[in-house]
């Protein structure tokens, strides 16, 4: 128990002191997971719209696959991405293994199905007549998609938060494809694992608290957007 207080104290100390290493790790976590979430929003919502607005054979299977993808274990994603990015592997020519780009890629694979799955559920939950109504008013296809997304914005933002929460907190993929390199790919979760194995429990707790505050801040911002749109 004393360790937790010690960690809280250490977290405050590191933040007040503007410890450059901790700031860099924190900023990198935010950048990597933020970018991965942004890309996943584009891919995931695109996929959700495609599946929601089209009827095709095997649609249920696709939906089942998307829903299964929501539970992809990060360590499995990490293993696949690592082997694919190995310099002697099929995508070795990219040369991005053990760089932040590799972490973004792996986190995209983790977050896209989450956002796609929840996004699809949000779109399917809209009243079935709504689409016909919008089209009857003469909307183009782009306008239709925009209006539908707007109508479902509340659960869609929840999907974005779930995606961000999934990647900012994962460690299995980040440590495998990033390598936890100091000053380059060390993010909050991988640093926490390392400090724990070094026995620096106070620093590990401090990093955990910073991670929680970061996750809270981002989600508070998104919640603000979500609830503000609700009031109108």
């Amino acid at each position, binding site marked *: 128990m004393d360790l937790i207080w010690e960690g809280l104290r250490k977290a405050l100390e590191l933040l007040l002191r503007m410890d450059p290493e901790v700031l860099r790790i924190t900023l990198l976590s935010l950048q990597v997971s*933020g*970018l991965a979430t*942004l890309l996943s929003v584009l891919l995931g919502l695109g996929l959700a719209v495609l599946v929601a607005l089209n009827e095709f054979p095997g649609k249920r299977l696709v939906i089942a696959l998307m829903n299964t993808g929501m539970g992809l274990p990060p360590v499995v994603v990490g293993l696949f991405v690592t082997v694919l990015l190995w310099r002697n592997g099929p995508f070795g020519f990219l040369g991005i293994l053990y760089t*932040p780009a590799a972490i973004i890629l792996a986190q995209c694979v983790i977050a896209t199905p989450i956002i796609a799955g929840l996004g699809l559920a949000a779109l399917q939950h809209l009243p079935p007549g709504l689409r016909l109504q919008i089209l009857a008013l003469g909307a183009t296809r782009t306008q239709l998609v925009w209006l539908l997304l707007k109508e479902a*914005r509340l659960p869609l933002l929840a999907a974005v938060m779930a995606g961000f929460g999934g990647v900012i907190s994962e460690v299995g993929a980040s440590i495998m494809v990033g390598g936890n*390199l100091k000053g*380059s790919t060390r993010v909050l979760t991988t640093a926490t694992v390392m400090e*724990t*194995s070094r026995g620096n429990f106070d620093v590990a707790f401090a990093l955990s608290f910073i991670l929680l505050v970061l996750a809270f801040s981002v989600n508070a911002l998104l919640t603000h957007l979500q609830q503000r749109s609700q009031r109108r």
Partner: protein
Amino acid sequence: MNRSTFLRWGLALATSLSPCFLAAAPPAERIVILATTTSTQDSGLLDELLPLFEKQTGYQVKTIAVGSGQAIAMGKRGEADVLLVHSPEAEKALVAEGSGVNRRIVMHNDFILVGPAADPAGIAKHTAAESFQRIAATKSLFLSRGDNSGTHAQELKLWKAAGIPFEGQTWYQQTGQGMGQTLAIATEKKAYTLSDRGTYLALRKKLGLPILHEGDPALRNVYHVIEVNPARFPKANAAGARAFADFMVSKPVQARIKEFGISLYGSPLFFPDAEVPKLDAGRS
């Protein structure tokens, strides 16, 4: 929320996330991938040596700290440039098989047997083999790393030498985790375990595990540096690997290794060996 607010937020977010880190990657020939064991990283040794190497040579080292088993597997596939590991049998196999070249001794420390202060198996004052036999005879809980690391390989060798069937026994459990984690679990479960001295010393204050057995020649823990064979893996950074290996066995670095840990832990964590390569002779 209207469209322009949304776009403004999106723009602000995108700007704050501008991936400046994606541009700054150095060219591949300046990067050295070092696959090593957790003990060199967790003890803090690499944190002390790598900045020195990077400053001297201009190379950037990517340290992948994993168990020796995984480090050697990466070498076998040409996915690392240079290895710093402590699993002699597997190292020799790697060199014999042609994936590794120029294996050189860097340093050693030793393994120690730690356990609950009460020492229910009474292993103090016995040889390593006898200690293992007593642990088995009293069915005292023993924690194995179980992760193909150098420490795990050493432990398996000791069980074999003691002639004890240990697999599947209720008193024999595998953590599958690194040394630091395994020591923490051993403290909680009042179990015996085999540890490298470096990690143990670095963590000693946080553990409730005294050293119960040490000093047996069978418990020597030797670290070698091995370059990945560039003839087999053309993508390997041969020059960088050679530079790192040369650096590790160079006089000033060996002197640093000798000093490392004294101020923090009261005794050195590693003993430099590059000057006396004959120490490795005859060891399997």
